[in-house]
């Protein structure tokens, strides 16, 4: 298993190592995607839970008018996948697309569930991760409802991870619920 440090960082605050958690480190497979490849398609069940080794991926839904509505991104070191489809074992409502050439490692639902049985400390990790997820989603919802386009742009740029600055602006604009033209104008004002 060549991605031990990556997994150890991704699953902080747990102190994981192959000697104490052999089953956890066993069940990972490396996969590669070209730019524009779909990792998961809308209408197909998500069968994996991913950790990103490299690259940027976008998760989006197709709106009624056929436009992509970006819900979030994953990038180096973060978790990825269509989590609700994965847990509910139901078809995904979203697309997960590699926006840049991407390498990810992945595990299955059976393996994922087994961690919580084999290693009780994963319940602590689960609590922390889901708290962060919930708080992040609430913050984003509040930003979308209460902030102007410029405020949303400024807030995003302040916390924007470096890899996201390399992807096409239309994805960032969609994530911030603004047109690519508005995004471009705000970006030029900033620089």
């Amino acid at each position: 298993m060549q991605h031990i440090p990556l997994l150890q960082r991704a699953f902080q605050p747990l102190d994981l190592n192959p000697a104490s958690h052999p089953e956890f480190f066993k069940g990972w497979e490396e996969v590669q995607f070209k730019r524009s490849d779909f990792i998961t398609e809308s209408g197909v069940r998500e069968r994996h839970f991913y950790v990103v080794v490299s690259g940027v991926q976008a998760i989006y839904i197709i709106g009624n008018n056929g436009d992509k509505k970006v819900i979030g991104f994953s990038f180096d070191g973060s978790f990825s996948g269509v989590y609700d489809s994965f847990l509910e074992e139901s078809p995904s409502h979203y697309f997960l697309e590699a926006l840049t050439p991407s390498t990810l490692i992945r595990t299955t639902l059976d393996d994922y569930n087994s961690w919580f049985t084999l290693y009780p400390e994963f319940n602590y990790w689960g609590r922390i991760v889901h708290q962060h997820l919930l708080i992040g989603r609430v913050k984003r919802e509040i930003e979308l409802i209460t902030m102007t386009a410029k405020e949303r742009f400024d807030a995003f740029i302040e916390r924007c991870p470096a890899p996201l600055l390399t992807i096409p602006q239309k994805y960032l604009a969609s994530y911030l619920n603004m047109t690519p033209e508005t995004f471009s104008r705000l970006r030029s004002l900033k620089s």
Partner: protein
Amino acid sequence: MARTHIKPEIQIERINALRNTLNQLRSKENRNWLHRPHSKSWSAIEVAKHMLIAQEVYETKIESTLSRLKPIEGSLEAIRPNRTPAFLIKRFPPQNGEIKHKMKTTKKFEPVLDLTSLSNTDVATILDQLDSSLAQLKSWVTAYRTTDVTAIRFNSAIGAIVRFNAAEACEFILCHNERHFQQMANALKG
């Protein structure tokens, strides 16, 4: 539903929806698949066979075209179909569960099956083939999505009077399938 633009992601979403529907319909018994609702209408398995025949006609044309298209940076957002393909495509899909614009099927697209001798295995084989053909259609959409798809046109199944690019052909096949999935579901209801 009328569409002014062809969007590959929407096509993929719709193909996946058809595959999920097919998977659900497979639980129906063999006699349901073989039953003709009226003496002149097709049984559900004949409808499935017709979809296979219709897609096969495009197989060589699309695959040969895809192999000659140039790759683009990133992926296509949307393709505006030409007037004639757009007209045909718009007429095909069922509207609110109803099949509009009845069309005559020419001889070469008619499913020739002896319903009295089809076994459970035969039915299962045709349904497996239909699922594979939907997977193939999806692979075409996935492939053209990263190419300059509008650069090459080819004759449709009815000849040079209608010429498609690969995106239009995939949309045509998909709309045709959506229409016949509705017919298949209706036939299974009896």
